[in-house]
Each structure stands twice: as C-alpha cells, then as structure tokens.
C-alpha cells in the first residue's frame, strides 16, 4: 500500500502532461488525415526525422538549445509570478549585441567571445529590466508591455543590420552583419554535427537554476513572491528588488539564447533568423508545459525541438506540411492550461450538488 501511494504521488504530476500529449497526438493525427496521408507512417517518418540517426539527434539538440535557454528565462519569471512574453525581443537584442561585440570588441578572439557572451546577456537582461521597472514603478502591465516591446526590439535590430552594420563585403546586400572571426566561435561538440557548446551552456544553466531555486535564499524569495506576493511582502521580501532581479536574469537567459545561436550556428546576426523559427515562443511553451520546473523545461524543450525537426523530416518525405507541429504544440498548451484531467475529476465528484452554492 505504501509503495502504491508513493507511486501515485510520483505519477500524479505526469498525468496532466500525459493527457495533453495524447490529445496533441490525436490532433496531429486528425490534421494528417485531413491532408490525406497514412497517420502511423507519417508519425514514424516524424520520429526518424527527430531521432532517426546521430545526425538528426544532434540537429534536434542544436534546435533545442535556444528554446531551452529562453524557456528557462520564462520559467524564472513565472516563478516570480510574472508573465514575460518578451523572450523574442530580449533574444534578438541579445543576439545582435553579441554579434556586434564579437565583431568590434578589441582583443584576441577569446576575449571577443567572452565579450560577446556578456554583451548578449546584458542586452537581453536590460531590455527585460526596463519592462520590470515599468511594472514596479508605474504599474505598466508586464504581460502586455513585454509583448509590445518585442516588436520594437525586432524592428530596431532589423534596422541595425540593414543600415549601419550591414555586411557590404558580399555581392548580395542581405540584412546581416559581417561574419565573426573563427576564433570567437563556440566550438561544435562533434565535428560535422550542428550541436555546439551552447547546448552544454544551456544544460548547465538549467542545473544552476534548479540549485538557485531550491537551495538559496534568493531562490526561495523568488518562489515566495510568485506563490503569494502579499505573504512575501509580509515576510520581509523586497518585492521590487526580487521582481527586478528575476526579470533581469529572465531577459539575460533569453539574450544568452540569441547569443549562442549567433556564436554557435550562424556566426553573424541575420535579420529574422531567430524570429522565423519561433524559438522564443517554443521556449515559452516548454516552460508552460513543464510548469516552470527548470529540469522539466529542459526535457520539454528537447521534446518540442524534436517535434519541429521531426516535422521538417516529415515535410521532406511526405505531403504533410510542417505546420502540423505548431498545431500540435498549441493544443498541448491549451490542454495543459485547462488542467483537463484534474477538473474532470472534480466535476465528477461534484455532480450531485453542482446547481447549488459554488
């Protein structure tokens, strides 16, 4: 009996994501059926596209890297009780600052690399801090301000690489910066594979966040603020300070996501290379799916990345468009948010007295 209870306790948090994934798969099946392809075969093609061989596996991990970092940032903000929808803008500003630092910071390549990492995190962090400051000082709703600031940041970065810092060496005038010198690149983990040092950095950040949230006073303050701001204030937590710090590091993580993409994959800032694949939004979904648990966010980020790389493989080999992946993702979130299973149980329990006082 004891074992059964223990098992139940262990499995209970998994029931919700399990149902969500199940519904996601069913929705995907419906979408595939609408296009008129065999469902099971398509899913097998999808699985192979994500994990089929070592090359695809590393591609999945490479794609998971920025998603994981943004997801951690969002999770940290969630823990402090605020919705940071500005991951995309923070990421883009981080990326463009990192690229510029790596290009123009004086010194040997290793110094440029460090400068780029710091600049990227600082830019993302400060952009998020601005939203946090507007919230705490002027009560400008963070949820909306961070979202609107995305557009400002993306357009500004686009201006930077289209006008003053554009790469004019090539023949085609693309909106991108010149290439960073090779010494300042983040090394690849395996030669010929796309996964790079950034993935190690991301996993390290996830572990660090676990430790901070679980074992340090500031981590405890963040959680307390998120769970009950009034009690936190009563307990002597400096609400504004904790909020601002959480937002800064939340943005810094998003900035780092953009930075490692620049230093590990593209080696320059290309207009739209972070926004088109929707890294930031996938990161937000990963954090939501994992209920803001850092390690859970890491797992969810890899799963969502696998869904996307799998969908690309699917598009190469079948007639199904890769947008199926985004449909499945959104359904996942909707059902995770709806606390579907739990409420269903509650409704059943209350069936008798539902029309009385609620």
């Amino acid at each position: 009996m004891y074992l059964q209870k223990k098992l139940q306790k262990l499995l209970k948090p998994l029931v919700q994501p399990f149902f969500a994934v199940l519904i996601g798969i069913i929705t995907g099946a419906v979408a595939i059926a609408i296009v008129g392809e065999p469902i099971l075969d398509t899913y097998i093609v999808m699985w192979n596209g994500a994990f089929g061989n070592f090359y695809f596996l590393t591609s999945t991990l490479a794609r998971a890297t920025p998603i994981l970092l943004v997801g951690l940032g969002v999770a940290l903000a969630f823990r402090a009780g605020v919705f940071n929808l500005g991951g995309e803008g923070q990421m883009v500003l981080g990326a463009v600052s990192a690229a510029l630092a790596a290009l123009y910071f004086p010194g040997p390549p290793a110094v440029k690399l460090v400068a780029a990492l710091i600049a990227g995190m600082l830019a993302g962090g400060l952009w998020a801090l601005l939203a946090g400051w507007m919230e705490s000082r002027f009560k400008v709703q963070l949820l909306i301000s961070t979202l609107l600031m995305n557009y400002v940041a993306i357009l500004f970065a686009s201006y930077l690489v289209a006008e003053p810092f554009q790469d004019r060496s090539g023949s085609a005038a693309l909106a991108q910066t010149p290439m960073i010198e090779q010494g300042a690149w983040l090394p690849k983990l395996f030669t010929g594979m796309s996964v790079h040092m950034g993935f190690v950095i991301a996993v390290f950040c996830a572990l660090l966040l676990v430790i901070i949230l679980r074992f340090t006073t500031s981590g405890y303050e963040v959680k307390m603020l998120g769970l009950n701001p009034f009690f936190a204030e009563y307990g002597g937590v400096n609400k504004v300070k904790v909020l601002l710090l959480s937002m800064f590091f939340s943005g810094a993580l998003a900035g780092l996501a953009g930075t490692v993409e620049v230093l590990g994959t593209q080696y320059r800032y290309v207009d739209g290379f972070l926004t088109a694949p929707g890294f930031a939004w996938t990161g937000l979904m990963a954090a939501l799916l994992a209920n803001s648990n850092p390690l859970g966010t890491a797992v969810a980020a890899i799963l969502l990345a696998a869904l996307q790389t799998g969908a690309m493989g699917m598009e190469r080999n079948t007639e199904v468009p890769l947008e199926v992946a985004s449909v499945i993702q959104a359904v996942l979130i909707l059902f995770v948010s709806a606390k579907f299973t739990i409420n269903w149980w509650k409704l059943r329990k209350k069936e008798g007295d539902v029309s009385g006082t609620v």
Partner: protein
Amino acid sequence: MELFDYSLFVSAIRMVSPILLAALGGALCARVGIFNVGLEGLILAGAFSAIVGNHFTENIFLAVLSGVAMSVVVSLVFGVATIHLKSNPIVAGIAINFLMLGLTTFALRAIFDVKGAYYDKDMAGLPKVHIPFLEDIPVIGKLISGHSPLVYVAFIAAVVLYIFLYRTVTGFRLLAVGKNPAAARSLGLKVTTLQYGAVILSGVLCGLAGAQLSLGQVTMFTEGMTAGRGFIALVATMLGQSHPIGIIGSSMLFGLMDALSIRLQGFSMPTQFTAMLPYVITILAMFFLKDRGTDSLAGQQSSR
C-alpha cells in the same frame, strides 16, 4: 507630401475599425471578469476564415459570416477553457493565440497550398458605402462616407454596446457579474451563461475585426497578419476603461498611429522606425492607464 493632411484622417478611420471592434470584444469580457488575452487569435481566425469563405462562396456577406462563425467557435473554446475548466485566462488566451497562428498557417498550406500569404486578384473585397447626402458635404463628407460597411458597424457597435450595458437589464446584470460574481450568483443571476454570452459576443466582434483586416483594404491573408493588433486592442480596452465611448477615443488614437506609421514611410525615414510607432505609442499610453486592471503580481497567482 505633407505629414498631416486630409487623407491621413480618412485612412485613420479605416484603421480604427479592427482595433475598435476587438477592443469592444475585450471590454465585454473584462466586464464579466475575464481578461481576454486571446483577442489576437480570435481576430486571426476571423481574418483567415473570411478569406476562405470569400474564396469558396464568392459572396462577400457569406465571407464575413464565415469569419464571424469561426471566431465564435474559437471564442467558445476559450470560454470552455476559462469558465468551465477554470484554467488561467492568460495561459488559455496565449494558447488560443498560438493555436490560431499554427492552424491558420497549416490551413493556408492545406487549403491554398501557399506559404506566407494568400492573394487572389479575382477576389472581391468589402464594398465601399457611399452615403447619399452626407457625401456631398465639403469637408466631413469624405471623412464619413466611402468606407467599408464594417467601419460603420464598428462605430455603431460601440454605441449599441453602450446602450446595452448602461440602459438594459441584461447589461446591468452583466456588469454585476464582473463587479462581484458571488453576489451576482446569490441574486439568482446565471453567471456562467452571462459569461459565455460575453465571450461569444467578443468572438463575433473579433470575427468582424478580422474580416475588416483581410477584406477591408487589400483582399489578402498573410501569416500572423494581426501583428500584435489584438494586444493593442487590449490596451485600448484598458485605456478606455472598458467603457464603449472611452474605447472609441482610445482606438481612434491607435488607429491614427497606424495610419501615421504608414504615412511616414513616404518620408526619408527608415521603415523600421516608422513601423515601431504604433507599438511605442501603445507602451507610452499604458503609463496613463487609470484602471490598471489587475496588478500582474497579484492577478496571476494561479498561473503555476
């Protein structure tokens, strides 16, 4: 070319209508105590379905109707999630936005087999309404006359909503639900029904907003064509303090900024900066909000 001229205000009135319609929908939800972040997704659903309806029926009325119908269906999903399953409205709203962004891009591929945007030159957009006598008045004439029907619907909807909320019994009940659901329930009001009603009505309004977006000026659909308008509308709702007449004012401001942002492109300014204008103004406007809604820190406790 002048910065402020007559045609700027004419185009501003055209730009106002999607924001105004959506903001009214947001206000209805706010009045029953639901913070509807899903406006963006609802507008997108409406915009896409309106194009699909236009493509298949070649009837502009049916096109608008299909936009509205789709938007209502999506708003019902949102309603079930927030009212029935008691999920956090913010998470559910964001999920709706994602879902519609994904579904419309998917359907764009599945139905029209195109990526990015769908445009068909044979497709007829919304007609322009010429009001017989008003049209001939020198200055105001062109300002008032010659817009798509949905522009007029938007302004009429605001007035109707005002009358509904403040002059009818059902309207008062709706307001009561938003003020204090428990007290409203103890009076015997059907709180859930009223909330569903508000959510569905906001679906209708957002569907109209979407139809105006995709059929109003140029008849086309592009991926994510709402570009944050749902959120701008949300700010318009808050700035107008969920009062229909206030919302007309705040929407006019944002519509004017939209028009100005397009107008500024004609000047020697980087397009990136002109495109920023509506967002920057919206953020600045939030500093002046009196009714700040719920404090984000206090309001989102149940999000985890």
